[in-house]
């Protein structure tokens, strides 16, 4: 079982969260071309090792998080809010 340290709720089981996807995707603007969108939503890296991925604390505070997790060992190096303003709040509260 993966345990995720939610910056708002504390360390919780992964069953409280929903997996999002690759957190490093820069989604193109809405008026971008089909080609750019295809690249963004269909072509993903299959990383062995640490990757940044989004998780939604769907059965908790509803925050979307960036989790740095190893796909090999499930080790989690860091967890922070996706939203930059929430990131700042978390930093200031440390």
């Amino acid at each position: 079982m993966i345990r995720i340290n939610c910056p708002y709720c504390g360390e919780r089981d992964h069953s409280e969260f929903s997996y999002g996807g690759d957190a490093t995707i820069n989604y193109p603007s809405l008026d971008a071309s089909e080609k750019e969108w295809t690249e963004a939503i269909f072509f993903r890296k299959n990383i062995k090792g640490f990757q940044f991925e989004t998780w939604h604390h769907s059965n908790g505070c509803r925050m979307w998080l960036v989790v740095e997790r190893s796909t090999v060992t499930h080790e989690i190096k860091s967890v922070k809010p996706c939203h930059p303003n929430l990131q700042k709040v978390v930093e200031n509260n440390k």
Partner: protein
Amino acid sequence: MKTRRLDNYGKINRDKILSFRWDKKNYKGFEGDTLASALLANNIGIVGRSFKYHRPRGIFSSGVEESGALVTIGSKDRRDPNVRATTQELYNGLEASGQNAFPNVNFDLAGINNYLGRFFAAGFYYKTFMGIPPFEWGRGTAIWMFFEKFIRKAAGMGSASELPDPDSYEHAHDFCDLIVVGSGPAGVAAAIEAAEKKLDVILVEQDSLVGGDQLAENNFDNSQIKNQLENLGIKIMTRTTAFGLYDNCVVGLLERVTDHISAPNVNIPRQRFWTIRAKHIIVGAGAIERHIAFNNNDIPGVMTVNASKHYLNRYGVLTGKRIAIATNNDSVYETAQQLSEAGANVTVLDSRTNFEIETNKCFEIRKGYVPYNINGSKKIHSLDVSKSENMNKSETINCDQVLLSGGWSPAVHLLSHRGVRPKWDYSNACFLPSDSKENITMVGSSRGLWNKNDCIASGIAGTTDALNRLGISKTNYFFPKPGGWKNPIQPLYEVKYKKSRSKSFVDYQHDVTTDDVRLAHREGFISVEHLKRYTTLGMANDQGKMGNIIGLSLMAELLKKEIPEVGTTVFRPPYTSVSIGALSGRNVGKHFRPLRVTPMHQWNIDNGAKMIEVGLYQRPWYYPKENETLSDSYIREASTVRKTVGICDITSLGKIAIQGPDSTEFLNRIYSNGFSKLQVGKARYGIMLRDDGIVMDDGTSWRLAENEYFMTTSTGEAAKVMSWLEELLQTRWTDLNVNVTSVSEQWAGVSVAGPKSREVLNNCVDDSLVITNNNLPFMGVTSTFLKGNIPCRIARISFSGELAFEVYVKSDFANTMMDLLWENAKKYDGCLYGLEALGALRVEKGHVTAAELDGRVTIDDAGLSKMASTKKSYIGSAMRKRGVLKNNDREILVGFFPTNLKETFNAGTIVCEKNNIKGQGIGRITSVTYSPELGHWIGLGFVKGGLDKWKDTNLVGADPVRNKQMNLKVVSPHMIDPKGERMYA
């Protein structure tokens, strides 16, 4: 074999006599017995029949590695098959019986299989699949089809109860700094050391008593240890198995709460499924003694040496009178001495020639001897032995029991669950655990330490390792070296004797013999994983705890390799079996999944609603009058809505409050149609696409104020849409100043639909002026009050195609609203209508729901191209123009009529061209209803090319599942009032 209870031995409570039944006869045992020890005390040697050959099977061990004494416990709805008699504690009234035998284990008709062995060798199953050579080899399976039912009937051991489980089970959770698995000397030392260093410790023991293998010592008393552990505040969990290790130091435990009690309190669960989140795990799971493969090594009376020590010292049962012990290591001599002191005549055959051992000389040691054959079938008559270097010189020893010790295998299973492969240790002839990068430390004999002092030292070292890894201390420590016997072990896995055709067993329960392993090798199944699947070696209840290493060594020899080169199969959870009941816990029956009801749920039922499940929601299905059937009822309800008025509970729709200065911009980005010009006081139907251009959901959004919207979603997609909006706002469009809040539970909603709906509402609202056609035109929204000062939101939205209003009040006012509306609707001969009538009304209008929007359909497929704005970009706007989604060949939404209007059809029907009725056809029907308005059956669905291509063609609806076929014609999906004149009325 003659087994009997001794007066001066054992730690059983002789003051408490327990009676139990075995194979329909009554017997007695004592408190503290296991079923196995009680059977042995009653001189019962045969307790089961083997899997394939139906050979008599006795008790091989005294623990979880048991592969012979698998019995059925209990009866009727509490019948549990394949329970190890060696771990089942005896209780008063226990009922047990032998398995896989007819009429009984002593005389089993299927014993004939023993003589047909050559047909049942490894892989016989798979060969049967291939057909009989040469006639149908490799092409037909007729032979398999014929034999399948017989084979299936013969396969398997005991049979489980098919009745509902009367017991309750529980899921429980706990946290700790350190969890210690196993309460032997190593585990206890680790736990004490950790508790003294102020760690919060849980100690887990699968046995009923704390002590581990020390329980087999003749003068061991565990009460002092138990007191010490308790005084240190250590949580001791006995009768609890750590069945698996998982990520982040999570341990799965199964606690058997009442399996040892004859009449358990019904308020207590039978078993508890624990999830423990620890910071460090110490495993002192012990080691398991192996047997040796030789001819007839499965005759009842064969046992591991350590098991007989347990039976003697813990249960006071002497397992034989004339005992032959075959070994290759030092561990048996203490037992041999104790057995001979207890009155048995003991001979030890040691395969080694050069070694020194101190004994009391009251038993015979024959150096350099090995056993090669047991004579007997239901019990042991004698043992044929030979000098290991010269198999031609043999002699026969009279005995009634043969004890085996082919070495010890550390229980590395739990570490293996974490993907850590064990490494072979040549000097100790066993697999030893490798170091784990995770916070897991192996201690005691599960790291190959054979003497008690080393085990204790390893326990303390294990805790020091834990403290270091947790950053609490930085102390040097070392683990004792594996081993600890005075004389080295001499590997001995199999004794071959060429002249015999008898079977020599590797895996007792699944009847895997040494010849099966050789057959697998000959036929090319040489990888350990293939060997396992082909022969079923290690796939029985014991999961290879006893036989695996023997199988590996045989394969290594055949391949002329060493054991580590052959490898080992990966052990996976669970270590011992976990009941399905424990896995499901309380999530059974009504609690299988959460139940959602609307605030007027009881009101609906009180007013005659029959309910239906929609996702987790209970929604009114139909409201039958007197003897009405479902179809009578929904047809009446739908007609009433078209004629006068109907009221429908639509609370289950998802509801989201969207607030903030950028709300309009936000909606304009997520909906395919424009929202930038929506006025305050108006609602708009909208469609959301996914990033890839496919339709995600549809619904309405109401502009309540400049910066405030009220969004409704479909019932099924509510949670998904909410998460999606949050994702967009928190990850992609972090500059937008918008807040979204789920208010699904806060508002109760009804649809009031039909030509008389405004008149009904007139009587219900405080100020009837607010709902006139001028003040509340089609898609208008207002916040006003129902009579009795109930604040409400009303929108003129229609799903039925009639003049209709959606009315929302705070959930607490739901019943008052329903009373008020219903009282007034009755005056116009109105009705309450359910989901079935709602469905009929929307199919008539060609409105799509989840049945149509199934995640494959584009906005164009659904015939809603007008909803796709060309003036703006939105989510999915680029991707919906992909070539593949713009194909002429795509299936487009249409309506269906049966050609013969008296015919019916069903959803799921495949639409085909008349002369080409096959495969997936050219379309499908997704929703079907009887149309009261049209007077015949109608359907919605999809067809390649849409209405334009097929409107004048006769098509065929094929329904192979229901064995039906009918002629169809394609019509516009808007089957009633296509211009929508009624809605705008």
